[in-house]
C-alpha cells in the first residue's frame, strides 16, 4: 500500500497543466505523450522536430529528478519484467489504436470537455482497475 500524498501530487498536477498550456501557446498542439513519442520515433524531422525536443525534455526531467529525489523511482521491479514487457506492448498498441493516453485524453481532452477524451479516460481507468483487481485476486503479484 502507498501513502496518500495530496500536496506533492497536486503540485505535480499543476505543473502538468502548465506544461500542456505551454505547448498549446507555443506550438498549438495537444500535449499527448504517446502521440509525441510515436511521432518522434517514426518521423523525427516532421514539424521541425518539436516532438523530439518535448520527449528529450521528459527524459532530462527524469535524470534531474533522479539526482535530487531518487526515492521517486522504484528500487526494483514492482511487476516481473516479462509482465512489464507484455504490458508495454499492450500500452503501445492500445494508445495508437485509441489515439492517446493519460495526457492527451485524460488531461488535455477533459480540459477541452472533449467527449472522446472523457470516454477514453473512463475506459482506461475502468480496465486498469479491473486488471489490478484481477492481478491481486489471482495473487500473481506478491
Amino acid at each position, binding site marked *: 500500500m*502507498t501513502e496518500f500524498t495530496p500536496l506533492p*501530487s*497536486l503540485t*505535480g*498536477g*499543476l*505543473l*502538468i497543466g*502548465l506544461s*500542456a498550456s*505551454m505547448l*498549446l*501557446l*507555443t506550438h498549438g498542439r495537444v*500535449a499527448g505523450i*504517446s502521440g509525441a*513519442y510515436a511521432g518522434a520515433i*517514426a518521423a523525427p524531422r516532421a514539424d521541425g522536430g518539436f516532438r*523530439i525536443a*518535448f*520527449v528529450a*525534455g*521528459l527524459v532530462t*526531467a*527524469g535524470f*534531474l529528478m*533522479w539526482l535530487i529525489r531518487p526515492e*521517486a*523511482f*522504484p528500487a526494483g*521491479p*514492482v*511487476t516481473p519484467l516479462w*509482465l*512489464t*514487457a*507484455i504490458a*508495454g*506492448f*499492450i*500500452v*503501445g*498498441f*492500445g*494508445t*495508437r*489504436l*485509441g489515439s*492517446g493516453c*493519460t495526457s492527451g485524453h485524460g488531461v488535455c481532452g477533459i480540459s477541452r470537455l*472533449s*467527449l472522446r477524451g472523457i*470516454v*477514453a479516460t473512463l*475506459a*482506461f481507468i475502468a*480496465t*486498469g482497475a479491473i486488471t489490478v*483487481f484481477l*492481478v491481486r485476486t489471482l495473487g500473481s503479484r506478491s
Partner: protein
Amino acid sequence: MSSSSTVKSNAWAYLAGLVFGVGLVLAGMTDPAKVIGFLDLLGDWDGSLMLVMGGAIAVHFVLFRVITKRASPLFDGRFHLPTRSDIDMRLVVGAGLFGVGWGLAGYCPGPGIVSLGAGSMPAVVFVAAMSVGMLIQQVTERDRSVLATA
C-alpha cells in the same frame, strides 16, 4: 520557419517536456506501486492521482480558454486541435487495452519515458516494448489502408 525560430520553438517544446516530467515525478507517477494503488479501487486505494489529474485539468481548463482566444500559437500559423467527436470502437478498444497495460505495469507512456532518464530498468523494458507495440499498430494500420484503397 527560419532556422533561428525553429531553435526557439524547439527550446520551448523542450522546456514544456521538462516541466511535464518534473510534474510527473513530483506527482508520484514514476512509482508504479503508487499508480497500481490508485487503480486498486476495491483494495487499499491511494487517491493521490485524483489530485494529479484534478490539478492538471484545473490549470489547463482555464489556460486552454485563454490561449485559444489568440488567432494562432507563437510558433505556428494555426492551432492543431482534434475536432472529432464521434465515439468509435477504435477509441474504446484502444483506451481499454491501454488501461490493461497500465494496470499490469503501473506505467503509462509519460512516466515510463521520464523514468528512462533515471535509468529505471523496468521503465527501459516498458518503453522498449511500448515502441514495438506502437510500430506494429502503425504497420497493421498501413496494411489496412492499402487494402482499402486497392
